[in-house]
């Protein structure tokens, strides 16, 4: 593996034609929301820049991010980026195993100290000194910290690495912790979703490799170009929401007519992701298009918010009781009304008895 091989050379070596390469550059530019002139800039960068190595680590996760990534809707993008990164380390899809595989990590640190991108799928469990996730004989959290010390930037793939996801669900026995709460001294780019959309993943990684800098991030550390708006803002069923046309239950007339799924729990209005624009599996479909509401899988704590089928969800403040804001608040307001009525009655009684007490009571004391 020559140290100064460019992306373009790697791609050519993997049998990608120049025509296909240029198509990839223009599609990526479009995917990133850049102007037409950027296709040329991306091509130029990939032709001239030495390849930035990527190390892909796996903590507590289900590998759905990798599954999504290798199914990138634009097959070329997937092949190309996959070819580029599989050269280093990804324990799911690389050829090496055992000690050979672990040696690659040390070699990467030696050759590219402070240069490589650390892509993290899944998160480290911190409880019991990290013993709930052991890789190559030591806790994953140690491996993560070791690699993070030498990397340039971290991509937190998926909701596990970004927010914690289901393994961090209450009561979180392994204390699974998102990357940004473990690695505090390196930039962490969150690419949430369970899994993230394949084109979003390839888009983010291509941006970083081609432009040699982090994509613009929002307050939460997510790339703005893919997480700048909610599903709701670009949803093709939005007109039905505004009109007040809702699916009341699955298989009713509204469901057949493709009305808004908000009342059956669609979390599109609170979920930042690109599903409603890029869609899934090469633009084939996405949850709302298939007639089911969004679960909000790209959002923090979506796993502990109670029902996926109600717009009013659990607050997570009442322990194991599945109470929504409406049940807690409604009970409180009803209790206030009952309490007020009882207090009013008691006040009237107290006033009546109070008047009696002020009357002279000599005969009682004499008796």
């Amino acid at each position, binding site marked *: 593996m020559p140290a100064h091989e460019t992306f373009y050379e790697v791609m050519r070596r993997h049998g990608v034609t120049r025509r296909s390469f240029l198509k990839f550059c223009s599609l990526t530019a479009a995917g990133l929301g850049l102007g037409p002139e950027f296709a040329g800039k991306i091509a130029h960068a990939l032709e001239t820049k030495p390849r930035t190595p990527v190390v892909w680590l796996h903590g507590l996760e289900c590998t759905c991010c990798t599954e999504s990534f290798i199914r990138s809707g634009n097959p070329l993008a997937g092949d190309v980026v996959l070819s580029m990164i599989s050269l280093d380390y990804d324990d799911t899809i690389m050829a090496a195993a055992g000690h050979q595989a672990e040696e690659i990590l040390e070699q990467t640190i030696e050759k590219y100290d402070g240069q490589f991108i650390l892509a993290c799928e899944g998160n480290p469990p911190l409880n019991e000194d990290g013993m709930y996730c052991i890789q190559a004989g030591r806790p994953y959290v140690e491996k993560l910290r070791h690699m993070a010390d030498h990397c340039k930037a971290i991509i937190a793939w998926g909701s596990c690495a970004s927010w914690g996801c289901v393994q961090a669900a209450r009561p979180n026995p392994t204390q699974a912790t998102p990357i940004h709460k473990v690695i505090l001294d390196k930039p962490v780019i969150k690419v949430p979703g369970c899994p993230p959309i394949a084109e979003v993943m390839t888009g983010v990684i291509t941006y970083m490799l081609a432009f040699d800098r982090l994509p613009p991030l929002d307050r939460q550390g997510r790339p703005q170009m893919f997480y700048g708006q909610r599903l709701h803002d670009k949803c093709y069923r939005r007109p039905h929401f505004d009109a*007040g046309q809702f699916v009341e239950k699955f298989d009713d007339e509204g469901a057949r007519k493709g009305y808004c799924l908000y009342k059956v729990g669609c979390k599109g209005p*609170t979920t930042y992701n690109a599903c409603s624009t890029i869609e899934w599996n090469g633009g084939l479909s996405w949850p709302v298009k298939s007639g089911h509401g969004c679960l909000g899988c790209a959002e923090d704590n979506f796993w502990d918010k109670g029902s996926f089928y109600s717009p009013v969800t659990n607050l997570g403040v009442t322990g194991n009781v599945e109470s929504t804001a409406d049940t807690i608040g409604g009970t409180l*307001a009803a209790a206030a009304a009952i309490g007020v009525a009882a207090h009013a009655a008691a006040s009237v009684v107290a006033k009546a008895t109070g008047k009696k007490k002020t009357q002279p009571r000599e005969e009682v004391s004499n008796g």
Partner: protein
Amino acid sequence: MATSRVATGSEDYTGNLYVFEVPVRIWHWIHALAITVLAISGYFIANPLPSVSGEASDSFLMGNIRLIHFSAAMVFAVGLFVRFYWAIVGNRYAKGLLVVPVWRGEFWSRLFHELKMYSFLTRKVAKYRGHNPLAQLAMWLFNVLLALFMVCTGFALYSQGTGAGSWADRWFGWVFVIEPSSQAVRMWHLLGMWLMVFFIVVHIYMVVRAEFMSRQNGISVMIDGIRRFKDDGPRDPR
């Protein structure tokens, strides 16, 4: 005010006194109306009305409910800040909304006296010109703290529609740094509505009760601003 005077000394708890100035009273009723509209429209944003049939382009029900909610929210927020301004320049009863004298021993002793009185543990009813300490504390908790919470979470949720870089996002986007889950912010905003309903139920009861059972008027003071004491006895009965 021909029939009322401005309170002179600490012993002045007789006759009629002008306590609540015009801006305070106007704000009170605008605030009450805004909360009513916000609570109802907000409830229907969380739990929409039955589905409308026909062409989507023929109706704009949810859009209008949201428009009403956002408009009332602007009234609520602007009114709140005008009222805060009046708490700075207004009379001592206007200042009471923001400045709760928790550093004064008398505040706490009178607060516990009110709690005892409402718990029927004492029959001694004291007179007050403005709010009693319990009422003042409740005003601060619900109409300063909770109201600001609703303004911040509300505009943060509003910024989701107006988008990154909008004024709502620049001023209130920090809410999502504290609580990254916008669904959670929605639910806290909804619970805040219910807390406000709780306050309104108790508030209306207390005012009506005061009208009939306390030693001063309760309802009319927020209409003409005049506190009417029902007896000329000492402020604190023995």
